[in-house]
């Protein structure tokens, strides 16, 4: 056990840029590394990624392990699991941090079980137990109704972290670090699952994960027509339209705008929830918003336990008047 040392962050990239989740992982990793008095390193995997290592160093890694191979251009489960298994066995970190992303969701459990250890998915808090020096892994369970704190006796201790749950390090271009290249050693035959196409269904306009204002509708909106009214308000506030799961399941809105545990995790300045009951699974995706506003006809709706401001009423009557009033205020 004593052989496993340091914190390693699997840093996701897009093109040759570190993604925000990687900076958040390095932020969390830095705090754990300091608590343990051990090193923080980054693992970057991809193709043509020489430009990434300096960024990881800027964000706090003192060592960067880079695996650069054409077979790693896009995420393929088998390729990435094999490569990560190799890297982890070489560097033997005490803790591995990944993001709860498209990749992390798929890669982390496979890797954990391959390595004979465990992983806690979607952590919102990480700390070192002062006595045992083991990692305390806090994650929402029961759809967010509860939080559980997990520990493991096996190594490495693995976690994925929820987007926007951890504070990123302030980048510092003067930080120094070392880059270690590790060959992938992959054979094309190792890759059993093959991605044969990637389809993007991005909606026009601002993405909900980037918007400062999100106007979201739920089952009570009743159809596509209703969402047009939400769009009008969103446009006025230079924001984006989101939804709870039922409107996406019903095809009123694209799946890519679903907010929640199994959708997007967002934290805008203003979140306006219209005809959304406020299930714990939905709130998992938006409870980090600065101000939550609810319009719901049921005064007992759970959403009012999270909202800062609200109206109890029928959105069909309230929303047009609300949009008109906002328009008037913005004009004056």
């Amino acid at each position, binding site marked *: 056990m004593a052989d496993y040392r340091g914190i390693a962050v699997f840093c996701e990239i897009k093109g040759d840029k570190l993604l925000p989740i990687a900076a958040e992982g390095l932020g969390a990793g830095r705090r754990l590394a300091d608590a343990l008095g051990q090193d923080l390193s980054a693992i970057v995997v991809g193709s043509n990624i020489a430009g990434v290592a300096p960024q990881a160093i800027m964000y706090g890694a003192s060592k960067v392990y880079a695996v650069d191979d054409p077979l790693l251009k896009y995420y393929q*489960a088998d390729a990435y699991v094999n490569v990560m298994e190799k890297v982890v066995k070489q560097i033997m970190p005490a803790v591995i941090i990944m993001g709860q*992303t*498209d990749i992390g*969701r*798929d890669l982390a*459990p*496979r890797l*954990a*079980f*391959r390595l004979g250890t*465990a*992983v*806690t*998915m*979607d952590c919102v808090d990480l700390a070192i137990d002062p006595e045992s020096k083991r990692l305390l892994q806090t*994650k*929402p*369970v*029961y*759809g967010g*109704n*509860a939080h*559980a704190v*997990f*520990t*493991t*006796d096996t190594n490495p201790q693995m976690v994925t972290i929820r987007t926007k749950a951890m504070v990123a390090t302030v980048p510092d271009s003067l930080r120094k670090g070392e880059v270690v290249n590790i060959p992938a050693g992959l054979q094309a035959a190792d890759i*059993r*699952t*093959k*991605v*044969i196409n*990637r*389809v*993007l*269904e*991005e909606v026009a306009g601002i993405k909900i994960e980037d918007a400062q204002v999100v106007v979201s509708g739920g089952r009570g909106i009743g159809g596509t027509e209703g969402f047009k009214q939400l769009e009008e308000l969103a446009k006025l506030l230079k924001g984006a339209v989101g939804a709870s*799961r039922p409107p*996406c*399941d019903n095809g009123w809105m694209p*799946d*890519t705008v679903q907010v929640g545990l199994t959708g997007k995790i967002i934290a805008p*300045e*203003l979140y306006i929830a219209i005809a959304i009951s*406020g299930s714990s699974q939905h709130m998992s995706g938006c*409870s980090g918003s*600065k*101000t939550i506003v*609810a*319009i719901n006809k049921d005064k007992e709706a*759970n959403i009012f*336990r*999270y909202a800062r*401001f609200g*109206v109890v*009423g*029928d959105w069909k009557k*309230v*929303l047009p008047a*609300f949009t008109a009033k906002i328009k008037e205020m913005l004009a004056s």
Partner: protein
Amino acid sequence: MNIIVCVKQVIDPEAPPSSFKIDAANNKAEMKGAPPVLDPYGEYAVEASLKIKEAKGGKVTVLSLGSGLMREVVKKPLAMGADALVLLEDEAFTAGDSWSTAGALAAAVKKIGQYDLILCGREASDTNAGQTGPAIAEVLGVPCVTLARKIEIADGKAKIERVTSGGYDIVEVPLPAVVTVSNEIGEPRYPTIKGIMAAKKIEPVVWKPADIGIDTSKIGAAGRRLKISRLFQPIHEGKCELAAGETPEELAANLALKLREAKAF
């Protein structure tokens, strides 16, 4: 096609959050007044299996691990159209983590023998882990695709649309494989009267740890790698300011005023 679908009995995730209670002494939770249900994503997995069966023919075997499994809950997939039900039912199987659960499920899969596809939900509504499927794949040494929204079978391969944050990937995987299913696969069908009658006649096969040749130190709470040290309810101080007014126009105007005062936009 031989398809094995893993489903789990859980506390009702759609019950109002106010009925959610924690038994801190045992690190367990319950939904007061709401009976247990089939894990929703397991139900989506059942739906996926039935779509494949319709297209390709074959047999759907449902596999569930737990104790105190209510027959009306675990028989629901049969009423939806599945063919057989295997229960790993024993106190020793319970309170496991994804690892010990997957180990037992994989042992049962081996005993069932023939399989082309193993389907799981993308994540259970209680654990929110999303690990059991990938863990079964690792134990059995077969490939795994997560978050499926569409599954097509042809020439010993599955072509799968995998949900991503920006759309979906189209992934091809040789069979046998494990696939985890997301809600985008489509609403699970309702049991028909005929299905319910047929389900009544199907007796579940019940296996104990010894039946699948697995040591009790490897299953349930004893086989856990993740130790739970605390379970608690996060607190939300609900201090919502409701806008006042007699008419919708007044309500709306007052809400807008409050937001402006708070500089929320």
